[in-house]
């Protein structure tokens, strides 16, 4: 079967999201759980910056909803809300973010991830079970450290797959 270049690009894009989702739900030892970065958030932010006309608020929302369903015990709609918000901010700032040097970009990404964690914390607090402890915030820091690698890997994918 021959695929058109655009279909192929879309498939690659979906594949990157699928990989992020699998990484997000992959079983890990309990001690490593706090260090699991927000894979879906990272990949979503990248595509919002690189191809805002393809990936935006709607895609973010849908991804979040998939995560909610997969987690199974989170409030349905919680991650949908945070991912849509993150996608919106990343989309709005995509021109500035593209211009930033890599470390500054990583910092901005960490702030975005922090914001999404904050929304989760608020909603959880409102329904009466807010996570406690500093361990809750480590994924944002891990995201900061991982961003340059995620960026490089996805840029590579984007160039090879000619995703515009």
């Amino acid at each position: 079967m021959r695929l058109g270049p655009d279909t192929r690009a879309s498939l690659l894009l979906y594949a990157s999201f699928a990989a992020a989702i699998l990484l997000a739900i992959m079983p890990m030892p309990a001690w490593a759980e706090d260090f699991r970065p927000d894979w879906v958030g990272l990949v979503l932010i990248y595509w919002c910056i690189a191809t805002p006309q393809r990936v935006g608020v709607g895609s973010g929302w849908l991804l979040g909803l998939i995560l909610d369903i997969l987690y199974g015990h989170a409030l349905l709609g919680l991650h949908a809300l945070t991912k849509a918000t993150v996608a919106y901010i990343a989309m709005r700032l995509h021109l500035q973010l593209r211009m930033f040097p890599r470390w500054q970009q990583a910092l901005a990404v960490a702030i975005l991830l922090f914001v999404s964690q904050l929304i989760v914390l608020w909603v959880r607090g409102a329904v009466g079970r807010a996570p406690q402890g500093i361990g809750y915030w480590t994924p944002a820091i891990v995201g900061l450290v991982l961003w340059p690698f995620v960026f490089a890997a996805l840029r590579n994918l984007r160039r090879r797959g000619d995703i515009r």
Partner: protein
Amino acid sequence: MITVFGYPLRSPSPFARLVLLAALSTLLMVLDHRGHYLDRLRSTTMVIIRPIYAVAGLPAGVIEAVGDFFTTSRTLRHEVATLRDETRELKARQLSYDALQAENERLRQRLASAARVATRLMAADLIEVAAEPYARKIVVARGSRQGIFVGQPAIDAHGVLGQVTQVAADVSRVTLITDPGHAIPVLNNRSGLRAIVFGTGDPDILQVRYQTASADIKPGDLLVTSGLGGTFPPGYPVGVVHKIIHDPNEAFLDIHVRPAAKLNHGKRAILIWPTRAPLSAPNPPAHGPARK
């Protein structure tokens, strides 16, 4: 361009879309939190997501398989020896246990109280552990087709694991006692003090709340299920008091409890049918998790 009655319809701006979707997700959350409107939907999705989790679990499975392969024969021999010793010891204990049970039965008869019928058990393989941090739940490979019901207690060889909170045809979700939404009524085995043990989200720490400084509880005390609330049968170990912090500024003691069950170990949970709970029409858990 799409037109509606001749008017061109522009696709909404990103901000409008965000507002719309945020409202939609809030609606979903309210439906999910307030009512149990989405329960049916959830038990359906639980079946759909199983294969996805199976794929996500592959790397861990491969690592484990490779690890098993390289287990040396020495370790195995050592393990066999330990297991043999253990079997011998358990058999010896079983002897005295049988005698004790018979005696217990006789005493009960004399007291004319209802004898505890042997509890029905069912082992269930763990197929999934919650990926979301701070929620302590597991999914086991037994469901309504095997008679599992919501509110059913789950234990392991060492103590109480939690209770079933969602049931699909062949799988069900168990909320562990360490889940922040879970509470279980207990009795201090030493002093008889009644208390409620709450989950904290931390896999090693449970919390006893609402105990004043004068409560008869101290580190090392074993807490067992009290049977109050009707969800858990009485007498199963829940945890051991680990640390008591008395802050004079607080009205209540901060009591930390180590769970007795090995919540993070093993691949099997045991589901039990409490003797007095009806098999066909289970009550919703009175002290069940204060639903999210």
